[in-house]
């Protein structure tokens, strides 16, 4: 049986990708951002997922205004990086998992989530930046196949937080009915607070962001009741993309362990948020990662250190 063992939340700010691609990671401004992901990369190396699902949004790269799918699941064998105006990012082609993706699509559609199936798609920074932050900068290939789930958060209205959360649950159910033994991680990306359009551009709301991360860990159902107007008012017009994190959260168990958190302002115009949540390991669970507990404790210490350091 396949199963989702952990969730990762991460911003996907394009400027982070540009800093990576242009070798600016050692500049103090960017070091502040990247240092917050060092432990996360280590966590990912140790967790070694067999497959990752990455929930993200396209930014006028694969989807224009002629077609605006609310949920689009990437079922292709591969997803080339999109040219976002400066040439495609110098990252490996993202390899998919067509068999599992097709299985998920079939399962969640019959579960009444009307997904769009995408058999050909380029992926932009929304997907590749969080992958860099967690997987580093591999030259030739990403360490595992990735199933992209593109969510419309560009045109109002995006799906509600509740809908996203419930889709996450349906995805988990789909994954757990897949016969192959696979350990999977799901990413929710975007946010946190930011507004990049209009006279109110530059809005950041750290108080909101902190509450969002707290509730994501401990009381996600509370987040599912937040109406869109509150996201836009409090976290910025573009901050509404935080609903995508609720798909990730819905795919996890109700009770999770927060093993890491990082938050810094700004990266370009955006508050950078990051969290790692692990499903609690049941007594009868596979003993693939006996060191999980100590790792968890270590990560927690680091996370506190990071917060203290801020």
């Amino acid at each position, binding site marked *: 049986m396949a199963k989702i063992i952990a969730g990762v939340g991460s911003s996907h700010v394009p400027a982070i990708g540009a800093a990576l691609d242009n070798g600016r990671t050692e500049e103090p401004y960017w070091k502040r951002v990247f240092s917050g992901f060092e432990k996360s990369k280590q966590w990912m190396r140790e967790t070694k997922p067999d497959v990752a699902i990455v929930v993200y949004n396209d930014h006028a790269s694969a989807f224009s*205004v002629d077609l605006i799918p609310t949920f689009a699941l990437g079922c292709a064998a591969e997803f080339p990086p999109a040219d976002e105006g400066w040439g495609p990012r110098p990252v490996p082609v993202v390899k998919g998992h067509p068999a599992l993706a097709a299985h998920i699509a079939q399962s969640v559609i019959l579960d009444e989530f009307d997904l769009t199936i995408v058999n050909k798609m380029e992926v932009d920074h929304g997907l590749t930046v969080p992958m860099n932050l967690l997987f580093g900068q591999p030259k030739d290939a990403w360490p595992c196949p990735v199933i992209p789930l593109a969510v419309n958060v560009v*045109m109002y209205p995006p799906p509600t937080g509740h809908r996203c959360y419930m889709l996450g649950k349906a995805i988990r159910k789909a994954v757990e009915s897949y016969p192959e033994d696979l350990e999977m991680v799901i990413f929710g990306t975007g946010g946190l607070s930011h507004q990049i359009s*209009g*006279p109110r*551009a*530059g*809005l*950041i709301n750290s108080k*909101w962001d902190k509450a969002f991360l707290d509730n994501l860990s401990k009381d996600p159902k509370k987040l599912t009741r937040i109406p869109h107007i509150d996201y836009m008012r409090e976290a910025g017009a573009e901050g509404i993309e935080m609903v995508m994190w609720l798909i990730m959260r819905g795919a996890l168990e109700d009770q999770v362990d927060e093993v890491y958190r990082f938050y810094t302002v700004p990266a370009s*115009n955006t508050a950078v948020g990051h969290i790692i949540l692990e499903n609690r390991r049941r007594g009868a669970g596979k003993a693939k990662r006996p060191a999980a507990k100590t790792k968890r404790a270590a990560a927690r210490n680091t996370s506190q250190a990071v917060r203290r350091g801020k």
Partner: protein
Amino acid sequence: MARKDTARKAKDYDDIPGTVVFDAERSRQGFGINMFCMSLMKDENRKAFKANEPEYLKRFNLTPEQTEAILKRDYNRMLELGGNIYFTAKLGATDGHSFQHLAAVMTGSSQQDYAAMMLAGGRSVEGNRSRSGKAKPGSKSKSKPKSKSSAKRK
């Protein structure tokens, strides 16, 4: 396609100051603007646009107001006429501007001040939540950067 716009119904999010929400209605209204911006992803199109902007824009069924906003690089007006920021940013990139330049333009500040505001923690939501509430005493003007960065101005 470029039919006349009927009066827009009031939406709850119209109350958010300094914010134009790109909804389904604006998506229809701004189809030409956004498709024009999409076309700038191709180098040959960028060159054709730069060679003769008004002529190039004729391909996109724009209203005179939309054409004017594009030619004048009035980014806030483009949003009001149905443009979306992820699309209009491609026009900015075609002009060789960073995104932060566009953000500064939209907020009516210099890029330096805008960048300083971001470094200082961004624009506060206090006083920036609601148009209807903005008349309350003590709330700040909606579109000014935080005082910290304003103070850096001479």
